[in-house]
């Protein structure tokens, strides 16, 4: 679009730009509310957020939230996108007509340097002094008029977390003259060390004229940090925080999970009642409703875990946790930056893998992606619950711990330790265990904002639901077909699935799993269980022809307890620590790495480790008399 064709009615393209942690996303949320479109930039896996806003004067804007950047001299995939959008180097992405440089008014030192750098690009811009309420409360006074004169751009105060905090910004945008920008070419080259130092000096000179700030703006933070980042207390607090978080995930989610389970059960019965017996009813009830329901049931756990993660991130705690764990992660060649993606993976590896985008070092990012599936995600829990309930006695160990709980805890730890081992091997093979970058901002402490929290959660839920509706639904249908056809012959004695393609595959692969102590029934259940781990429980119920209903799990538990040895059960648990039985995860690895190589590699090494570890477990257990 050229200036000549842009009319008052055409939405103006505005881009928000700023340092990470300057409150830019809060301001974006305030401007656009839920009128946001989240997608990826063409060809790269950087999140692209755009929203629409109508100013009180009636102008409409398309607002683009550029990834946070410290500099145009990009150091990560995110920063590269910001640079390329501004320079018009990105295909399918028009250069913005207007720039809003968002700065943290409490930290202009760092923020203004980027503003000066970007100003050279010649795009009309407005400087937003965000978090101006916080700045005022801390006694920081900025002479906006003078600052505007020195920079040659309009300067406005904004408050990203207040309902009318962007009014002044919109009013200023309305007055901006777009005709001036026309087709000026962007001029930018990588700055030299001297350039950067010079820019900093200019920032200092400008601030000397416009800023009146007390020297003690960090007094509260220092007190908190002295405890939170303490080598001993800090780690203790981190352990307690994580423990509380997982406790909440499991106890708070129980009720909504029951509701979803009952809801899908009711829906299945209702549909069953409406239709006559036949393949279509079977597809709808056993395939789609039961299948999608079995994945949907994890939504409450995912929501709760993400509510914690988002709140902890918003408050500034997570970067500090990453700080505390950096040395530990460094032992295996990763950095503290991998901590947040791995933490998310305990809910589900999919958002965890997507969260690796913040890792600037591409090798570290790849390693984190490859080990994310080893974090015990919530989909493994139904399998663990079935096996632990059936085989591990309810008894107290050392007068304090529940043996069943200890086994579950052990499986979590086993996953983490294995992940660390794999990371170590991968980083070794990559030839570098030392000198991985950390350089991470530890932002000031802030109270999490409820509105941003809810918007963030809504986005996560939407991503999850889209997966359930797309890839998972498709796979459920395929697996239903595999487990249903061909139908059992008339007069058949075994369960119907035994005669299906899934049954044939199960029988065919059974010799491979004999050293693991897996019966053919288990092998058959593993086939539909490829779609998602928890499906294996339902598949086992089908294989053993357990009647459906509320007691299904308990009934199945007592049945497998009679049929399998303890060695087999242990081997199956260990199998599930590793086995990448989750096609959506592999699909997301493909999407994030842009090649089939890594999902195939992940599937290969995870299946290999699963087989080997389960085999060792089974053989050891048999040797010890648990066969």
């Amino acid at each position, binding site marked *: 679009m050229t200036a000549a064709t842009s009319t008052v009615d055409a939405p103006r393209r505005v881009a928000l730009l700023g340092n990470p942690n300057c409150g830019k996303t809060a301001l974006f949320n305030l401007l656009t509310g839920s009128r946001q479109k989240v997608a990826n930039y063409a060809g790269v896996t950087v999140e692209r957020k755009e929203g629409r806003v109508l100013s009180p004067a009636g102008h409409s804007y398309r607002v683009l939230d550029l990834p946070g950047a410290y500099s145009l*001299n990009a*150091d990560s995939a995110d920063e590269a996108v910001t640079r390329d959008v501004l320079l018009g180097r990105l295909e399918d992405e028009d250069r913005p007509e207007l720039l809003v440089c968002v700065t943290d008014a409490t930290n202009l*030192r760092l923020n203004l340097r980027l503003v000066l750098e970007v100003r050279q690009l010649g795009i009309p811009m407005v400087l937003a002094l965000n978090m101006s309420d916080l700045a005022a409360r801390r006694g920081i006074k900025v002479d906006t008029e003078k600052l505007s004169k020195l920079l040659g751009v309009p300067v406005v105060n904004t408050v990203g977390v207040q309902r009318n905090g962007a009014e002044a910004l919109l009013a200023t945008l309305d007055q901006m003259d777009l005709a001036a920008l026309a087709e000026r070419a962007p001029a930018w080259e990588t700055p030299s060390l001297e350039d950067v130092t010079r820019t900093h000096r200019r920032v200092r000179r400008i601030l000397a004229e416009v800023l009146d700030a007390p020297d003690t703006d*960090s007094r509260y933070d220092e007190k908190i940090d002295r405890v939170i980042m303490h*080598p001993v207390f800090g780690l203790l607090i981190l352990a307690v925080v994580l423990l509380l978080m997982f406790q909440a995930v499991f106890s708070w989610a129980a009720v909504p999970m029951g509701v979803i389970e009952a809801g899908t059960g009711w829906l299945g019965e209702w549909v069953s009642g409406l239709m006559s017996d036949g393949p279509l009813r079977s597809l709808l009830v056993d395939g789609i409703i039961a299948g999608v329901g079995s994945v949907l049931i994890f939504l409450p756990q995912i929501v709760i875990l993400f509510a914690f993660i988002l709140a902890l991130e918003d408050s500034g705690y997570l970067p500090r946790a990453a*700080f505390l764990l950096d040395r530990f992660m460094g032992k295996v060649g990763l950095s503290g930056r991998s901590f947040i993606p791995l933490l998310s993976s305990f809910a589900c590896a999919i958002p965890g893998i997507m969260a690796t985008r913040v890792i600037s070092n591409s090798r570290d990012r790849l390693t984190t992606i490859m080990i994310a599936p080893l974090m015990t995600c919530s989909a493994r829990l139904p399998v663990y619950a079935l096996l632990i309930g059936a085989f591990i006695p309810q008894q107290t160990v050392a007068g304090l711990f529940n043996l069943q709980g200890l086994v579950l805890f052990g499986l979590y730890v086993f996953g983490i330790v294995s992940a660390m081992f794999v990371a170590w091997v991968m980083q070794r093979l990559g030839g570098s265990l030392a000198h991985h970058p*950390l*350089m*991470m901002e*530890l932002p000031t402490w802030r109270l999490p904002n409820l509105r941003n929290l809810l918007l963030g959660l809504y986005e996560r839920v939407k991503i999850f639901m889209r997966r359930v509706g797309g890839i998972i639904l498709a796979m459920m249908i395929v697996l239903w077909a595999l487990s249903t056809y061909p139908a059992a012959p008339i007069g058949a004695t075994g369960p119907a699935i035994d005669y299906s393609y899934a049954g044939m595959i199960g029988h065919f692969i059974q010799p491979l799993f004999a050293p693991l102590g897996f019966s053919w029934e288990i092998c058959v259940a593993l086939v539909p269980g490829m779609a998602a781990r928890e499906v294996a429980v339902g598949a086992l119920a089908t294989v053993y022809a357990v009647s459906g209903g509320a007691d299904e799990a308990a009934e199945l538990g007592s049945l497998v307890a009679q049929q399998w040895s303890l060695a087999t059960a242990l081997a199956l648990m260990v199998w599930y620590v590793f086995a990448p039985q989750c096609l959506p995860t592999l699909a997301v690895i493909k999407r994030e790495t842009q090649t089939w190589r890594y999902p195939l590699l992940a599937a290969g090494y995870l299946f290999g480790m699963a087989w080997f570890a389960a085999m060792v477990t089974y053989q050891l257990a048999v040797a010890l008399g648990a066969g």
Partner: protein
Amino acid sequence: MWAAAAELDKELDVSVNLAPATPLAKLTVGQSARVREIRMPSATHGHGEQLVLRLLEIGFVPEEVIRVMAVGPGGSEPLAVRVGGTMFALRRHEAEHVLVDVLDPNS
């Protein structure tokens, strides 16, 4: 603190500091220091000028006063360093490019 900024350009050229500079990584928790210079990385590190440029960009510029706020468990890294109102976590190999003059706490 800002008042001196205008004088900086002149100052930098004339002041010759004869005392040996301390690498940032050698500072203990609570110590303040003034940045003297950013050293280019030795060839073995392999992350080249980009790291030094980024250190400058986030505020580690000559004359800036910095302070070590915390050190990670284990006592050597990472370092939490406050520079120009922002706190950054740096690994030892990143911090060692920053050469500083330790400030006397009483002055």
